[in-house]
């Protein structure tokens, strides 16, 4: 039982990270029906900007005196950097192809993904970059269950970001504009919603969330490397499909399910098949409900 709860905590932590990345896929798909395969690379870039900022702060000695400030600043910088990177990528690689077939944009996305990950390799090197912070490395024990402060930080931050995103999409004017664009670009243009601006914003938000996930992964696992975006990218994409691509709540749910299944599969059946279990669930759900758990829908919950 103790180890069940421990595995549950592990699963929530991993699932939260997948959920944050999955949101980017699902939001972009919702607005322009494009699977942005370069999304995993925004996640990796976020992790790298984080390690650069935190190393810089540690070098100055601020990390000792103002840890909270340094973390906040690193998160803000990484999220902003990735947001602008995503806007740039969209303008260069996707916008000119918006009128072409969807396949063209998809290939362009794959190209951007390879370009960004190799760019990271060439500029940052092939070696792992270690996160400087030993902060939150400790934890506390409840019985034999160990919870690290980092796990708490990750779960809390993920929850805050998810709630903030929900508020943004469903309670603000910008969110309404996003939902309108997702439903009908021409119609929303008629009521004076600039679709280009909304699409940029969607990319920016998705990439910002991925960047936050990147730093959290870096802090949690202690290091980042240039190819870190690939596997979580694939998992998060599966999570988005599982939850129903285009649906925000679905992406969150999908991320949590994939994370949980992976951890429990590895914990109770066998570690070598954990990815298999995640995909069995995916295939099972898609077999009975091809639109995913929450379903890709046309009503106003889609972004």
């Amino acid at each position: 039982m103790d180890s069940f709860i421990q595995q549950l905590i592990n699963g929530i932590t991993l699932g939260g990270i997948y959920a944050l990345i999955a949101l980017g896929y699902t939001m972009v798909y919702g607005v322009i029906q494009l699977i942005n395969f370069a999304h995993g690379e925004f996640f990796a870039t976020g992790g790298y900007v984080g390690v650069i900022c935190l190393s810089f702060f540690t070098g100055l000695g601020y990390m000792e005196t103002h840890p909270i400030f340094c973390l906040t600043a690193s998160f803000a910088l990484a999220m902003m950097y990735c947001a602008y990177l995503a806007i740039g990528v969209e303008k260069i690689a996707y916008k000119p192809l918006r009128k072409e077939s969807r396949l063209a944009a998809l290939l362009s996305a794959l190209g951007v993904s390879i370009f960004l990950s190799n760019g990271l390799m060439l500029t940052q090197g092939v070696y792992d970059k270690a996160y400087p912070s030993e902060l939150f490395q400790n934890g506390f024990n409840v019985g034999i269950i160990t919870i690290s402060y980092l796990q708490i930080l990750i779960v809390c931050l993920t929850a805050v970001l998810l709630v903030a995103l929900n508020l943004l999409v469903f309670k603000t004017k910008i969110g309404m504009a996003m939902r309108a664009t997702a439903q009908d670009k021409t119609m929303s243009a008629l009521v004076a919603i600039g679709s280009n601006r909304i699409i940029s914003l969607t990319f920016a938000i998705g990439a910002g969330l991925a960047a936050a996930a990147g730093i959290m992964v870096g802090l949690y696992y202690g290091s980042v490397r240039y190819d870190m975006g690939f596997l979580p990218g694939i998992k998060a994409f599966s999570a988005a499909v599982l939850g129903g691509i285009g649906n925000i709540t679905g992406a969150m749910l999908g991320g949590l399910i994939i994370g949980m299944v992976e951890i429990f599969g590895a914990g109770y059946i066998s570690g070598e098949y954990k990815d298999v279990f995640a995909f069995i669930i995916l295939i099972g759900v898609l077999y009975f409900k091809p639109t995913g758990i929450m379903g890709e829908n046309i009503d106003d919950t889609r972004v």
Partner: protein
Amino acid sequence: MSKKSLSIVVMSLLVIPFIISTASAKTLKIGSMSPLTGPYASDGTDIKNGVLTAIEVFEQQEGPIPGYDKIELFPQDTVCDPRQAVAAANKLINLEVVGVIGAYCSSSTIPASETLNEAKIVMITPASTNEQVTDRGLPYMFRMCGRDDDQAPAAARFIKESLNAKTIFIIDDKTTYSQGLADGVSKNAKAIGLNVVNHDHVNQGDKDFSAVLTKVKAANPDILYMSLQGYSPAALMTIQAKRMGITSQIVTQDAVFQPKYMEVAKDTSEGVYLTYGFTDPTTPEYKAFEAKYVPKYGKIAAYATYAYDSTIALLKAIKAAGSTDADKIKAELMKLDFKGASKHVKFKENGDSGSSYIAFKVEKGEFVPYWDPATGLIKK
């Protein structure tokens, strides 16, 4: 003179300088194969750097090889993928290289060596420790590093005799190398009366090991044996194990012998043991290697030293053979008997050059020789 014959003369005049220049400036081509991209890019880059250093040192110490002006390296990327490795081997065959240093992963070396042997090209692996690399009886396959069936008993004996452990939990990541070694350790440990409580697997490229480590914590073994390909997953697993409060001693193996391991795992790597071939860092040969390598590429890592020795051996043999014929080079390789940077190089009939596994301990961010199977504790 007709227009046609004029053009022929002009053409031949244009071509002649090329023929002459290739005749006078002949390049000795050698190839290297290692993962330069993908998850093992760092280890593969170390190998390439070791080879480049060896070429530089060889040209400086022994001068050019008769008949050639310079030695050129054609580094190929295998990505630690069998298919890419075979493609890289074919590319090197087309480039007409004389010898090949590589590959890194045993699962790449094995198929690539079949291709290279068919084309009669000598291959020396600096890093593939799986037994099958030399046990298939390929005539042109050589190995500079040790063998896993030497490493596994050394590790099992170390765990029993020096660490006085009774129970072991083994984790591998299912590569030819890591799984072969893990099976070997498991078999040897059982044979000398240790209790292997569990043998679990993770996937290549995993970052999250919390599930399997929770199992380790519940089992609470004396030893956690990590058989992982490369320092990067090993560092991640060490950090997560310590954070989770696992108190088992961690023992790991040669692929983790990389200064980057301590850089990433930091304090959590203190007190971790690993088995690796013994290299004396005080010999003049090692110093010569160090003097060239460190300023250019930084700290010397896992297989750079073996890659260096492999290249020196290959170049020595080519020079002595005075030919690019694989059989003549092989004959010279077998005659070699010299002090390398990593060890004394003397190839055996099957292409191996012997193992010298000892246990190292991580102390203050350095790998310190700790225990020798022959003599016991090196330092208290």
